[in-house]
C-alpha cells in the first residue's frame, strides 16, 4: 500500500526523464558525441554548452549519450545485488537454526565492510572492464539485501497467518508468493532505490579509477576522469558528468525516501484532513481539564459518520477508559486526538485541545510527537521490522527534543529498564521480531513515555497479551500514572480491565458516547444506559450458576455506520425502547456527579 508522496512522485518522474534521455540520446546526439571538431579543450560556448574534450568532442553530447551505458550498468549491478541478496537471505532463513545463525553473522560482517573495497577486491580478481565492475558492485551490495531479506522473512514468517496457511495445506510456493513476498516487498523496494544510488556512485568510481568502462566506450565515471584532467582549462568538462551522477543519485534517494515514508505507520502525523464545526451547545468541560474534545466527528469522504459528535474531557493525571463493542469508533476517536487518522477519513470538531495546544489546526509535529504518547493495539506493527530497537525508541527524542545520540541511547536503556525489560543494553541492538509480544508491548510503552508526554493514549494495549503479562502491563501503566502524573486515555473492550485501571469510563456505541460513569459504578453494575447494562450482563462470571445455559447476548448487531437508524442507534436492539427512540436521537443528560447518559428511558420510571 504505497502512499504517493510528493517526493516519491518527483523522484519517479525525474528518473523516468533520465531513462528517456538514456533511450533517446544515442540516436539524437550519437554523431555529435563522436564528431571531432578540431577545437580541443575549448571552453563553454554557444556551439558547445559544456565545451569540448581533448579530442574536440562535444562534452554535453557525450554526457547525454553516456546516460544509456551508465543506467544499464547501474541497473544490472542493482539487479544482481537484489537477486543474489534475496536468494542468499531466503536460503539462510530457510536453512536450519544453526546455519541461520552462522549465516547471519557472516552477512553482518560483510555488510559492515564498505561495498567499494569489496568491489575493488573482486575487480582485482576479475580484471578491469565493465562486466567485472558490474559483477563486483553487484556482489558487493548483495549482503545488504541478504540481511534485510533474512530479517524481514523471519519477522513475517513468525506471524500467525503464515502458520495458518501451512495448517490449511497451502502449498509452499503459494505461501512464498502470496503470504511472504507481498509483505516484505516495501522495505526491499526502499533498499533497491538506495542500492541504485549506491551502485551508481560505486560504478562511476571504478570507471573513474580506470577499473570500469574501458575506452573507446565511456560512462559518466569515465567522462569524469577525463574531465578532471582538464579541470584548469575547461572546468565545465567535469561538471557535466558530475551533475548527472549527483542528480540521478538524488532522484533515486527521493524515491527511496518517498517509499519509506509511505510505509512508516507514524509518518504523516498531523497532516490528516481537519475542519472546524459548530460548537455543541450546553456542553462545557470543567476548568483545568487537560484534554477537551468538543463535538468530534470522523467521516468517510461520502459523508458517512464513523464517529458522530463525541464530546469528553480528561483531567490532568486522570485515567479515562473507553469501552464499547468493536467498530464502535473507540480507535478512531483516539487516533483523531493523536492526529494519526488513517488516510481516507476526515475529522471535524468544534474544539479539540490539549492544554494550550490546539489540535484542530496545523498542529506542530514536534509538539504532537512529544506531548501525546501512543501505545498501539498491535505490537507487531508498531515497529519497523528492518530497523533495530534502539534507533526507533530514541527517534522522537533525537528528532524533536534535540537530544544527542549517546544520551538518547542511555535514556532508552533506562526506559526499557523501567518497564522491566531484562538486559536492556542488548535489547536496543535487537530487531523487533526478536522480542516476544509482551516485551514488544512494554518496549512500545517505553518509547511512548520516553519524551515525557502529557497524555498517553493506549489503544487496547493488552488485547494481544495473555493474562499475567496483561496484569503486568496494567500495573506498569498505573505506576507511570502515579509517578509521572501522566493522564491517560485507555481503550479496551474488556470491562474487567477498564475496571481495574481507570478512574472514569466512557461507553461508546455506534460512533457516539452513550454513557459516562465513574468506574466504581461500573464495578458494581450501577449503569443507567440499557446498552451498558447489556454489556455487563454478557460478561461470563466465575461464580456462574452450575446450570450452564447460553450467555445473555444482545440480540442483533450494531448498525453499520452507513445504515444507522435516525433515532437512537441502539433502538433496534434495546429491550426498553420507547416510540420516540426510533425518531429522535437522545442527547446526553447528566445523571449525577460525573455521570451522564444518552437515553430517552433514563429517568423515566419503568
Amino acid at each position, binding site marked *: 500500500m504505497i502512499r504517493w508522496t510528493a517526493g516519491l512522485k518527483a523522484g519517479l518522474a525525474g528518473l523516468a526523464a533520465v531513462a528517456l534521455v538514456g533511450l533517446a540520446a544515442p540516436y539524437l546526439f550519437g554523431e555529435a558525441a563522436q564528431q571531432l571538431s578540431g577545437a580541443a579543450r575549448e571552453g563553454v560556448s554557444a556551439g558547445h554548452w559544456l565545451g569540448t574534450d581533448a579530442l574536440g568532442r562535444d562534452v554535453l553530447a557525450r554526457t547525454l549519450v553516456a546516460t544509456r551505458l551508465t543506467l544499464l550498468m547501474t541497473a544490472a549491478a542493482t539487479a544482481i545485488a537484489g537477486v543474489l541478496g534475496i536468494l542468499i537471505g531466503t536460503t539462510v532463513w530457510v536453512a536450519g537454526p544453526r546455519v541461520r545463525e552462522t549465516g547471519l553473522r557472516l552477512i553482518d560482517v560483510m555488510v559492515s565492510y564498505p561495498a567499494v573495497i569489496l568491489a575493488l577486491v573482486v575487480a582485482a580478481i576479475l580484471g578491469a572492464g565493465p562486466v567485472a565492475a558490474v559483477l563486483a558492485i553487484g556482489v558487493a551490495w548483495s549482503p545488504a539485501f541478504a540481511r534485510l531479506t533474512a530479517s524481514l522473512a523471519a519477522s513475517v514468517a513468525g*506471524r*500467525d*497467518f503464515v*502458520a*495458518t*496457511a*501451512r*495448517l*490449511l*495445506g*497451502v*502449498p509452499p510456493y*503459494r505461501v512464498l508468493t*502470496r*503470504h511472504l513476498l*507481498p*509483505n516484505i516487498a516495501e522495505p526491499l523496494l526502499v533498499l533497491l532505490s538506495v542500492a541504485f544510488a549506491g551502485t551508481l556512485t560505486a560504478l562511476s568510481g571504478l570507471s573513474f579509477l580506470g577499473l570500469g568502462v574501458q575506452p573507446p566506450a565511456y560512462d559518466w565515471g569515465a567522462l569524469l576522469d577525463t574531465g578532471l584532467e582538464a579541470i584548469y582549462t575547461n572546468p565545465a568538462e567535469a561538471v557535466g558528468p558530475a551533475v548527472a551522477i549527483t542528480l540521478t543519485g538524488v532522484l533515486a534517494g527521493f524515491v527511496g525516501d518517498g517509499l519509506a515514508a509511505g510505509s512508516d505507520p507514524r509518518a504523516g502525523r498531523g497532516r490528516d484532513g481537519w475542519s472546524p464545526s459548530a460548537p455543541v451547545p450546553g456542553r462545557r468541560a470543567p476548568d483545568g481539564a487537560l484534554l477537551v474534545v468538543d463535538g468530534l466527528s470522523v467521516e468517510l469522504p461520502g459523508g458517512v459518520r464513523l464517529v458522530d459528535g463525541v464530546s469528553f474531557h480528561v483531567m490532568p493525571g486522570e485515567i479515562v477508559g473507553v*469501552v*464499547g*463493542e*468493536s*467498530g464502535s469508533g473507540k*480507535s478512531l476517536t483516539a487516533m483523531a486526538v493523536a492526529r494519526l487518522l488513517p488516510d481516507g477519513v476526515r475529522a471535524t470538531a468544534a474544539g479539540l485541545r490539549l492544554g494550550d495546544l490546539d489540535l484542530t489546526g496545523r498542529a506542530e509535529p514536534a509538539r504532537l510527537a512529544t506531548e501525546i504518547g501512543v501505545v498501539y*493495539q*498491535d505490537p*507487531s506493527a508498531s515497529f519497523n521490522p528492518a530497523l533495530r530497537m534502539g534507533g526507533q525508541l530514541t527517534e522522537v527524542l533525537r528528532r524533536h527534543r534535540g537530544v544527542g545520540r549517546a544520551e538518547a541511547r542511555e535514556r532508552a536503556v533506562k526506559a526499557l529498564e523501567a518497564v522491566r525489560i531484562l538486559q536492556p543494553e542488548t535489547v536496543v541492538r535487537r530487531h523487533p521480531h526478536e522480542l516476544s*509480544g509482551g516485551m514488544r508491548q512494554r518496549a512500545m510503552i517505553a518509547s511512548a513515555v520516553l519524551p515525557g508526554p502529557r497524555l498517553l493514549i493506549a489503544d*487496547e494495549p493488552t*488485547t*494481544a497479551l*495473555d*493474562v*499475567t503479562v*496483561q496484569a503486568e502491563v496494567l500495573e506498569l501503566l498505573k505506576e507511570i500514572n502515579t509517578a509521572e502524573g501522566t493522564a491517560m486515555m485507555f481503550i479496551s*473492550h*474488556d*470491562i*474487567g480491565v477498564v475496571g*481495574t485501571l481507570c478512574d472514569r469510563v466512557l461507553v461508546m456505541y455506534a460512533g457516539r458516547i452513550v454513557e459516562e460513569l465513574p468506574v466504581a459504578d461500573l*464495578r*458494581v*453494575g*450501577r449503569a443507567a444506559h440499557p446498552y451498558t*447494562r*447489556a*454489556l*455487563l*450482563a*454478557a*460478561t*461470563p*462470571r*466465575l461464580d*456462574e450458576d*452450575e446450570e*450452564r445455559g*447460553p*450467555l445473555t*447476548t*444482545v440480540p442483533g448487531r450494531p448498525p453499520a455506520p452507513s445504515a444507522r437508524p435516525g433515532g437512537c442507534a441502539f433502538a433496534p436492539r434495546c429491550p426498553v425502547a420507547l416510540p420516540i427512540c426510533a425518531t429522535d436521537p437522545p442527547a446526553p443528560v447528566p445523571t449525577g456527579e460525573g455521570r451522564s447518559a444518552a437515553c430517552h428511558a433514563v429517568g423515566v420510571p419503568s
Partner: protein
Amino acid sequence: MRLAAENLTVVFGHGSRAHVALDDVSVGVAEGTTLGLVGESGSGKSTLAKALVGLVRPRTGRILLDGADVSALRGARLAAVRRRVQMISQDPYSSLNPRMTVGQAIAEAIDPRRADHRRHADAVTGWLETVALDGDAAARYPHEFSGGQRQRIAIARALAAEPEVVVADEITSALDCSVQAEVLNLLAGLRERLRLTMVFISHDLAVVRHVSDEVAVMNRGRIVEYGPCRRVYRSPAHPYTRRLLGSVPAFPLQESR
C-alpha cells in the same frame, strides 16, 4: 479419544540455552467434547496448542488423531492430516495476511491450491454470516476491520476448512464481552451441529468454565491438575489451581443480572 498427546516433551533451543517448554504432557479430548486449558503466561499453553496441530515438533512423545500417530508424518500425508485439525490463534492482527482480502483468505481455507474467491463466493458469504459479519466484508482488507471483527474473520476461516478438531488459542481475549458471548454461544452451537471437538485455551477462567467439559491446568510446562470442569472449579486439588482461581479480579455484577 479424538485427539491426544502422549508423554509430550518440547524443548526449544539446544545446549546450555535449552528451554523445556512442555514436560511429559499427556492429555486427550474425546469426540464432541471440549477440553479447556488454563494457566499463566509462559506455562506452555500455546506450545501445547502448536504441538497438537503440528506446528511445533515434539522432542519425545506422540500426537494421536483417532488413535493414529500423526507426529511422524511428513509431506503430502501431513498436509492431508493437518486440515483435519485447525487452529485459531490469539492475535487477530497477525492471523490475517494484510495483502489478501477477507474473501481471498476464506477461499484459501476452502481450497488452498487454487483459492478462487469468485468460485467460492457463496460459501465465503455463508461462513461470514456464520460469524455475524455481512457478506460484503469479503471484498475488504483486514486493516478495514477492528480487532473483534478480525477475530471473527479468523474463526470463519478456520471453520471453512471444515475441521474435525479446532484448537482455539485465547480467541476471545480480543473480543468485546457481548461479542465474546456471541462467539461462545456460536461455538457451542457449532459444536453440537458439526460434532466439533475443541481444545479451548484461555486465561479467562470464567470463559473456560463456560465452554469446557474437562479442564487441564498448566504450570511451567506441566499439567498440574486435570479433570472434569465442575470438579476442578469446585474443589481444586492443586495449590497452583487454587492460586489461579484466587487471583481472578472479583467483579460482582449483581445489579445488572
